[in-house]
């Protein structure tokens, strides 16, 4: 049996071993050629909208330099070397070739709200002008029956081509009575199945759509589940977090435009470029963790000196996400930055496993060199459980999504 203390120590001190950030020259050269071809094919297609990025940049007076900065940041977010920057810029210009349909189910609209605040050049330029957002119930121009019709038209017209974004969980209890949509009273479940049937790929955005999220928290009164529990036999990408980081949403779209395929995914179907490492690995307070300097209670001297938040409940060491790097609200800040600690919102069942007080408020942990103590057993167990869940999900969540993604960039 693995000594859980040793295991936890290892988890806490390892480098970001979950992702290979450098895949070698040959790999990138191959990918570069493939992307170039893909973009030249896309370029020949008629745009779905007559606006393109160059126009937008010019008419909006966005500083060209700012745009280039954004391109290089996005290339880095996608974990591609800088030689890809011109291609990413081109992909941005070709966003109007890929139709996007966005549906909201059992949600709080938080992910849409976050998306409205995507990185500059502002999302209204990027997504709303350039991307062909065929349907988004909160943001679109149409309302009422027109909106209904617009959705049906988009799904029919772009059969097999559109990316379906799903925000919100799906309530399955009592024949789906907890969520219905449209004039016909179709249940969220029926709606999701109908909309995903002809999608090129399905992207679940936010922890509700990916893992059931807050509606699925115990006792799960509405029988909420995530998209991957229902949609099978289709490329599926999960972008969890509450809210999902808009940089990752835009990243997934750009990656799709660039390669025509879903990005490399982990066992929970999360893109590795965003969820390949723990926030702990790149946390600005990490040095204090290593030095054994902890906030013991909010408002204490440690808090004033920005020490490590682990003892007041930070779940950074077991949370896979890139928010310690890209942050929120266009890089303005992130929870750990203001002394709040990570709540593990991109992990499955974090409501029940990771919520605020547990298990770490009482954890008595010192820096790895000083040894790992008692209550660590508890979350050592938690980590093992999480891994087991991950493996289970991988086996269930259709071979198509998982395998395809593993192949796509390695050939």
């Amino acid at each position, binding site marked *: 049996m693995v000594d859980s203390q040793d295991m936890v120590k290892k988890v806490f001190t390892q480098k970001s071993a979950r992702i290979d950030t450098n895949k070698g020259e040959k790999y990138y050269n191959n990918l570069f050629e493939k992307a170039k071809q893909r973009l030249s094919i896309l370029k020949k297609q008629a745009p779905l909208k007559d606006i393109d990025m160059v126009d937008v940049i010019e008419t909006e007076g966005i500083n060209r330099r700012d745009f280039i900065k954004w391109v290089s940041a996005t290339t880095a977010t996608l974990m591609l070397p800088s030689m890809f920057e011109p291609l990413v810029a081109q992909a941005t210009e070709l966003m109007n070739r890929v139709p996007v349909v966005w549906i909201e189910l*059992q*949600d*709080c*609209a*938080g*992910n849409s*709200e*976050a998306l*409205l*605040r995507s990185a500059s050049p*502002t*999302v*209204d330029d990027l997504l*709303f002008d350039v991307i062909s*957002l065929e349907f988004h*119930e*909160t*943001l*679109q*121009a149409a*309302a*009422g*029956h027109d909106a*209904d019709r617009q959705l049906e038209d988009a799904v029919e017209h772009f059969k097999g081509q559109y990316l379906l974004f799903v925000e919100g969980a799906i*309530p399955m209890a009592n024949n789906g*009575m*907890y*969520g*219905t949509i449209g*004039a016909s009273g179709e249940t969220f479940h029926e709606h999701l199945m109908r909309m995903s049937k002809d999608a090129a790929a399905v992207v679940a955005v936010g922890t509700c759509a990916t893992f059931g999220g*807050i*509606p699925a*928290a*115990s*006792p799960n*009164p*509405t029988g909420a589940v995530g998209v991957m529990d229902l949609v099978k036999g289709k490329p599926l990408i999960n972008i969890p977090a*509450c*809210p999902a980081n808009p940089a990752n949403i835009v990243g997934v779209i750009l990656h799709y435009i660039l390669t025509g395929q879903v990005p490399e995914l982990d066992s929970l179907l999360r893109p590795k470029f965003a969820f390949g490492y723990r926030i702990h690995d790149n946390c600005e307070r990490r040095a204090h963790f290593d030095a054994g300097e902890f906030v013991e*209670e*909010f*408002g204490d001297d440690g*808090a004033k000196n920005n020490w490590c938040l682990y003892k007041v409940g930070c779940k950074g060491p077991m949370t896979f996400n890139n928010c310690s790097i890209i942050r*929120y*609200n*266009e890089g*303005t*800040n*992130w*929870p*750990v930055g*203001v*002394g*709040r*600690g990570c709540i593990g*919102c991109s992990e499955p069942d974090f*409501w029940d496993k990771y*919520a*605020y*007080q547990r298990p770490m408020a009482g954890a008595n942990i010192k820096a790895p060199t000083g040894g790992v103590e008692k209550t660590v057993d508890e979350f050592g167990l938690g980590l093992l459980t999480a891994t087991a869940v991950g493996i289970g999900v991988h086996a269930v969540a259709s071979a198509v999504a998982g395998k395809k993604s593993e192949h796509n960039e390695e050939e």
Partner: protein
Amino acid sequence: MKTLNIIERIEGEAKLVCTWKENKISDAQIQFLNFRGFEYILNNKPALDALIYTPRICGICGQAHLKATAEALENIYKSINEPLYITDKAKLLREIGLNIEIIDSHIKWFYIFIMPDIAKLSKEQKYLKYEALKGESWRKGTYAASESIKALAVFAGQWPHTSYMIPGGVMSDPTLFDIITMQNYMDQTLHFLEKELIGTDIEKYFSFDSELDLDTLNATLSDFKNLCFENDLHILGKSYNSHITLSDTSLFESGRIEVKNRLLVDLSLIDEKDINTFKINEQKKENEYTWAKTALYNNKPYETGPLSRALISNRKLIKNIHKTYGDSVFTRVMARMDELINLVFITKKLIKQIDLSQESYIPAKIDLKDIESATSISTVEAARGSLLHKVTIENAIIKDYDVITPSVWNLGPGIGDKFGIAQKAIIGADSIEKAHIILRSFDVCSVCTTH
């Protein structure tokens, strides 16, 4: 004749079922058909966990829920006569955070949700700039909202869904640099309001005492006024004209108004009914048609929100407009915009008042776990009106959690022959487009309504 319409471009979706008599709406049912069950989920959870759960009730007003939870738990201490001491700094950071969220919500609601619909009533070329997604004003509004909310992210870590408040204070400890950054964002927001929304500087706006003053300007508010008057929106959308505000802030006063009389509020007279509401795990009955409940004060329906707040705290311009046009769509929307302008002004002042040398958080002397059993209530002014949280805990475990959101007051179903607030406002409209706008004038949020 009966018609069924879908209301989108709110948060979530609503169905509007209207009965028509002689080309006018004679009855209206507002249906909310999405439910998550927060009150069930919160049961038996550790009390402090609620700080993470309740902000997720809504992607737009999470700050309001966070503040309500933090203060409900603080009121638990008050209820056992061991009140916590909250520094002015923590109080200010909470109010500023909430204000910024409301500022963001009002800008977005006006430019993204209601103006495109109102502009659509006219064929005139000049109003095309309000068109959703494409229009220049739509985009400028979106941009202004996302810039203003950064002032909150600076000390709250992110938005939406921040949880930086905690019973006893706040977790964050902003620096002078953070304060200056917040001021800069607020200055930008003010600049946007002066240039795009009002069309003149804020001092001049504060000297206005009638809607006629708007005619001297050429900006969104004057376009809005013209569109309203061309389409009778200054006459339509009237409800009971009874108003309630449950809590006080630097800008708002609590109270209620009924037929011009201003009266005090007694929280114990608030009651939530579910006669027309679906029940969990039960077959629906004939009369049940929505997940929304009905909130009543002393058994009567009251409107809550920016118009109620403006009237109760006596803000001049809105008071005067209300005298002439009552609780119409025009008055209601103007009240929300007037609140936006006042909030930006006051929030700038509040940021200046922060004394960085004070503590952010002072721990309680008594652990929640040692409080055997207690119940408490908190009230908060959210973007759409008054929010109420009521919690019962036993040894730090939640035994009952009840949330009454502003949209339950405004959009919940009527009972018997007593129509709900928005229901009554819609009755009498002569087109479905106008009915949509009347409903929208309450700033509809389906996820808050049902939670």
